[in-house]
């Protein structure tokens, strides 16, 4: 595994028309031990991310979106059962170990929702940013610091070398998240796993941080898996968006068509349930019931059926497959039948 990782160390903006996908997740099922039994948290998840592409991953709490990112970065808790395959540049991620795994993790960087919990409080910013660079890429300390200051400048954190001497608690959440992004970019990864990086931030700060992330991602030709509960945010930032429900992917759609022409009733219902900033609805189109976790979902029927306005007998008879439709994917057996009736464009 070390060869392809080493070869791609020299990161150039990836050719946009790269034929082979950068990351392929196929039939990923993950079970964790909970209350003495193995409970599924992901069920048959398949996604592909091409070099330089941004894929959004949207879902409510418990849908499995964070778990997907953790599975990709091999960060699952001990004792997790994993079926299916994850391939990075054609290589099986599950078979990696030791140096190979560490190099893979340098290629696939991760940023987290809570930057404060995810930075070591006793280490300085400089140490946090350059540790991987010095340890894994053998960059000398002074050079690593120089690059760190440069990268901080790029994410809009001024103050130069002085910043490197600060501790995490001296920075605000927004600043720390920028530091986190800068640190992730320093090892010149090819794929960024961003797990709700702006959820804990104020809206104006979110806008800033998203702009920075978007700019730098394009500049470095970086692919990104962007996890969020905000459908609109994902649609605005990502090329394609995948929607998860109860541990499954229910829809993958190019972002510009997601809002007006969704392929799954859940996506449409999610968009319709959200209040609109530009008009007051007499009544919001709430989805009845509550979101299910993967382990609560029935094994052999559509997990969304109990809450779905369009569900029929057939929906409860079998688990629908994720099927191709109009350039996207939908896990709804009535998807083609419902085309055009799901979007929110018509009532706007």
């Amino acid at each position: 595994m070390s060869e392809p990782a080493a070869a791609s160390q020299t990161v150039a903006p990836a050719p946009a028309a790269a034929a082979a996908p950068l990351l392929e997740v196929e039939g990923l099922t993950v079970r964790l031990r909970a209350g003495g039994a193995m409970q599924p948290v992901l069920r048959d998840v398949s996604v592909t991310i091409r070099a330089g592409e941004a894929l959004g991953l949207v879902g409510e709490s418990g849908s499995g979106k964070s778990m997907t990112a953790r599975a990709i970065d091999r960060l699952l808790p001990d004792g997790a059962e994993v079926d299916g395959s994850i391939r990075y540049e054609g290589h099986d991620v599950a078979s990696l170990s030791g140096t190979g795994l560490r190099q893979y993790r340098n290629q696939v960087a991760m940023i987290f929702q809570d930057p404060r919990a995810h930075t070591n409080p006793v280490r300085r910013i400089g140490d946090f940013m350059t540790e991987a660079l010095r340890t894994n890429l053998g960059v000398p300390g002074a050079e690593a610091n120089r690059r760190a200051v440069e990268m901080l400048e790029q994410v809009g954190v001024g103050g130069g070398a002085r910043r490197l001497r600060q501790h995490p608690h001296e920075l605000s959440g927004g600043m720390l998240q920028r530091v986190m992004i800068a640190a992730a970019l320093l090892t010149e990864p090819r794929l960024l796993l961003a797990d709700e990086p702006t959820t804990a931030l104020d809206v104006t700060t979110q806008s800033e941080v998203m702009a920075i992330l978007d700019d730098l991602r394009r500049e470095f030709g970086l692919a990104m898996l962007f996890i969020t509960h905000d459908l609109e945010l994902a649609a605005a930032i990502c090329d394609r968006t995948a929607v998860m429900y109860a541990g499954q992917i229910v829809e993958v759609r190019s972002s510009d068509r997601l809002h007006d022409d969704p392929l799954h009733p859940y996506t449409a219902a999610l968009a319709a349930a959200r209040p609109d900033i530009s008009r007051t609805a007499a009544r919001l189109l709430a989805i009845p019931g509550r979101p299910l976790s993967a382990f609560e979902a029935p094994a052999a029927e559509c997990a969304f059926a109990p809450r779905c306005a369009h569900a029929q007998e057939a929906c409860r008879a079998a688990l629908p497959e994720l099927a191709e439709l109009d350039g996207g994917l939908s896990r709804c057996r009535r998807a083609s039948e419902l085309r055009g009736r799901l979007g929110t464009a018509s009532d706007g």
Partner: protein
Amino acid sequence: MAEAGGAPVLEAPVLEAPVLEATGLRKEFGSLVAVDDVSLRVQPARSLAIVGESGSGKTTIARMIVGLERPTSGTISACGHDRSRPARSVRDRRRRGREVQIVFQDPYTSLDPRQSPQAAIDEILRLHHGWPDQRRRERMAELIDLVGLDIRQSRSLPRALSGGQRQRVAIARALAAEPRILILDESVAALDVSIQAQVLNLLADIRDETSVSYVLISHDLAVVRQLTDEVLVLHRGRVVEHGPTSRVLDDPQDSYTRRLRASVPRPGWKPVRGLPAGKEQEASSP
């Protein structure tokens, strides 16, 4: 239109006395001025939003209104009674409880983990109303029904309930005092989108049925639009804009309100880098 510091001006002339009025509110924590010269007025059965980001002072205002913080200066009155100073007697404190109630953000810590919804509501009914058992039981059933819980849920402990269900309990408990004003302190912010819509609909129904006034503390402009008539935009403790919600959101006058409005993701939205590097405040805000 942006008259910082003044009370929000309603479009229609108002003759009715406000249920809630605050003038010149100021709160200092040590050297930090959290709230600076804020005035507001809420009419019966109308709803006011207080919008801002972290550190704007919006939660401090809510806590001063319900009496959890004491204003450094300024006055607050609800239903004609002053509440700028701590209550002097138990009677006084309970009367204040029947004037203004609050629902907090986090449904997981808003309920005593050892109390079922029924017990929690019953405690409040006993506290405020000298009703016989039968009357209390009836009222309890009404409240549980009003917020859309079933009997089984009303008897389970909070840990068996979902976030949305807990928030319904918190609303029922607040309503048990039959307040004129309900403060919603980011009350739907922690909920999943599909649940948030249910609770927002519930809040709209309750207002229609009880003519309670809402003061919504929120950072979410879409929620504000959905639930309130007027809005007050706070930035670093000061009011930067106020007016009818639809007008402020459709045609914001203040530059901060515009930036806030522009930061909300929506179809076709692109994030923009606005601030120059390092201009954001460094230390974490309180």
